[in-house]
């Protein structure tokens, strides 16, 4: 039965937040699997979709305007697209910014997810939902690796909102038997990360300095430790979660933890520089509350999904540097799609 459907009409996926890093990689993955891929942005006409341009897939996608905090818009898009799978990647995604925009963070993440769950219930269709969770929900785990059983102790308005969305998904799965699950993703980076995120900020500065810039790189606390993986690999886990018999939540990570200093050293090393000559510490960049060490145990994903990270922090740093240098070498020429 399912085979006939696959042959006659492709599966349809709807990605909210398609203009972001994960949205772009996921769209590319789903296209390669033969999906018809729809994506949403708050204003699809005005959105830049630069990431989708860079991956050369913009022309193969269908766009819709949808704001997750507006129930009508969610319902309309679901009714129009009739997706088999929905990937909820939208929402204010910066921890730092969440201290400045706590209400927007809550509304786009928690109220948004609630609207999506309610809209799926309303359609009465068997729509599978992937929800983008975050390792930030764990907070400080005293150096212990976090798995699916580890209690949340969120330490930013972003993490509190993500914890809320996690439990909304769990409750709707249990209360209404929706196929809905959350991937608790640890930090995952790529050349598509915006500069607001510290990894890309470091890579951009290192590449400019290597190219002759005299600037200094200002960073907050570089003793914090994170588990960094590659975004392109993490979107595979998202897809795999929706192909299981039962909806469950999974931790997605590399299981390797490095300090931000390690990352800085790797990036500057990749461009042949000693980071200590170019980095200054800046207390104004410290967050009101910070997670010191983030550590993961992604063994359930390996056991049940057969998913395992292939790249570690060093691979990701190298990939980001290579890509940045390509962009720099392209100079002022307009970006062209690579396909």
């Amino acid at each position, binding site marked *: 039965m399912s085979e006939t459907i696959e042959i006659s009409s492709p599966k349809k996926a709807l990605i909210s937040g398609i203009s972001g890093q994960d949205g772009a990689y996921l769209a590319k993955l789903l296209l390669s699997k033969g999906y018809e891929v729809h994506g949403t942005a708050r204003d699809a006409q005005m959105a830049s979709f630069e990431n989708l341009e860079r991956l050369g897939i913009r022309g193969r996608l269908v766009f819709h305007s949808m704001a997750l905090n507006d129930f009508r818009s969610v319902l309309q898009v679901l009714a129009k697209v009739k997706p088999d799978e929905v990937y909820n990647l939208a929402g204010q995604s910066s921890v730092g910014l969440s201290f400045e925009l706590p209400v927007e963070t809550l509304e786009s993440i928690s109220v948004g997810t609630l609207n999506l769950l309610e809209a799926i219930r309303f359609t009465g269709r068997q729509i599978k939902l992937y929800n983008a969770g975050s390792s930030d929900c764990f907070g400080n785990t005293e150096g212990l690796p976090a798995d699916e059983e580890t209690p949340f102790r969120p330490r930013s308005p972003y993490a509190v909102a993500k914890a809320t969305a996690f439990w909304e998904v769990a409750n709707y799965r249990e*209360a209404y038997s929706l196929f809905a699950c959350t991937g608790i993703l640890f930090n995952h980076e790529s050349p598509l990360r915006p500069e607001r995120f510290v990894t890309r900020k470091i890579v951009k500065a290192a590449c400019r300095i290597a190219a002759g810039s005299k600037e200094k790189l200002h960073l907050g606390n570089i003793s914090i430790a994170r588990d960094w993986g590659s975004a392109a690999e993490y979107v595979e886990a998202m897809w795999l979660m929706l192909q299981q018999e039962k909806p469950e939540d999974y931790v997605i990570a590399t299981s390797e933890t490095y300090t931000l200093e390690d990352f800085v050293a790797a990036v500057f090393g990749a461009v042949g520089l000693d980071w200590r000559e170019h980095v200054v510490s800046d207390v104004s960049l410290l967050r009101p509350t910070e997670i010191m060490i983030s550590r993961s145990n992604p063994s359930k994903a390996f056991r049940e999904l057969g998913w395992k990270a292939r790249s570690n922090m060093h691979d990701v740093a190298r990939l980001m540097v290579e890509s940045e240098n390509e962009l720099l070498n392209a100079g002022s020429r307009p970006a062209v799609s690579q396909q």
Partner: protein
Amino acid sequence: MKKALITGITGQDGAYLAELLLEKGYEVHGIKRRASMFNTDRIDHLYQDPHETERKMVLHYGDMTDSTNLIRIIQSVLPDEIYNLAAQSHVAVSFETPEYTANADAVGPLRILEAIRILGLEKKTRFYQASTSELYGLVQEIPQKESTPFYPRSPYAVAKLYAYWITVNYREAYGIYACNGILFNHESPLRGETFVTRKITRALARIKLGLQECLYLGNLDSLRDWGHAKDYVEMQWLLMQQETPEDWVIATGIQYSVRDFLDAAADELGGRIRWEGSGVDETGTWESVRKEAGDACEGKVVVRVDPRYFRPTEVETLLGDPSKAREKLGWTPRISFKELVSEMVREDLNAAERDELVKKHGYRTFDYHE
């Protein structure tokens, strides 16, 4: 003189807390929502006319869903303590109105915390968040204490989870004296009529007098840790008076089932409920113990199960461990389960008798259905 601002002052806890704070010499400000009918029954005895001078109790119109309104009230009151008791507080209703519940119960407290920051009151104004044992939901250990992980099982509990953690975060991030009281179920004669305890005492009193036929309930096996709201508001005040803000479980440490509550209420009314059948077919038949009562319901089925009251996800058991409050603050609940049930039944019987009398003289009474 200290000033306190209570959101949800028209509710059960708001009324008891307002009374307590007035006794302690506070100037009490309360926020109430505008409604087409008066909703200040519970604080009627505390009301002071706006024309009186030196009022100790002031009501403001407001709403947890309106940021500018909250900022303006807090700016004009400049409270030393804010008790956030306002919420869409009904678990079952939250499945019907999940978005409103999130707006009032999750965004609401964030709006107040932000108002404190915006007005630069981080060092002056203390914040109490009414958290709930519903956070434990599908309990991860028995009994539940401050360190027990949460597993919320309703849109209400999920919204309250946001409020709990944002309170912790604003304490850690901005140094606000902000704390959570994780209150297990607490009841009183002022409990809303749609909550199971009050629904039981009100219905059995009316059934006894022949004003009602039968009481329909959901899960009779639900286990809860029931205390008296009057005891619990003392703890709310107490945990705002500490050197450092912390989160506290407030509970009795004793557990009863809904069926136990029914038995205790019947006993108080001089009756006994004979239980028969199981599951949705379980019934409770009234047997008079004190014969002088001459109950209208003798031998009749007075309790039935209605699956309509089952929830999409049930919380089967809640039992609090109040050791921290006892050991660090010397707090223990004073009113026992039996005394609680007894007081609730007495008040509801009194109200039912008033209704009966009014009816007998040909005047109209209200039944107030759900």
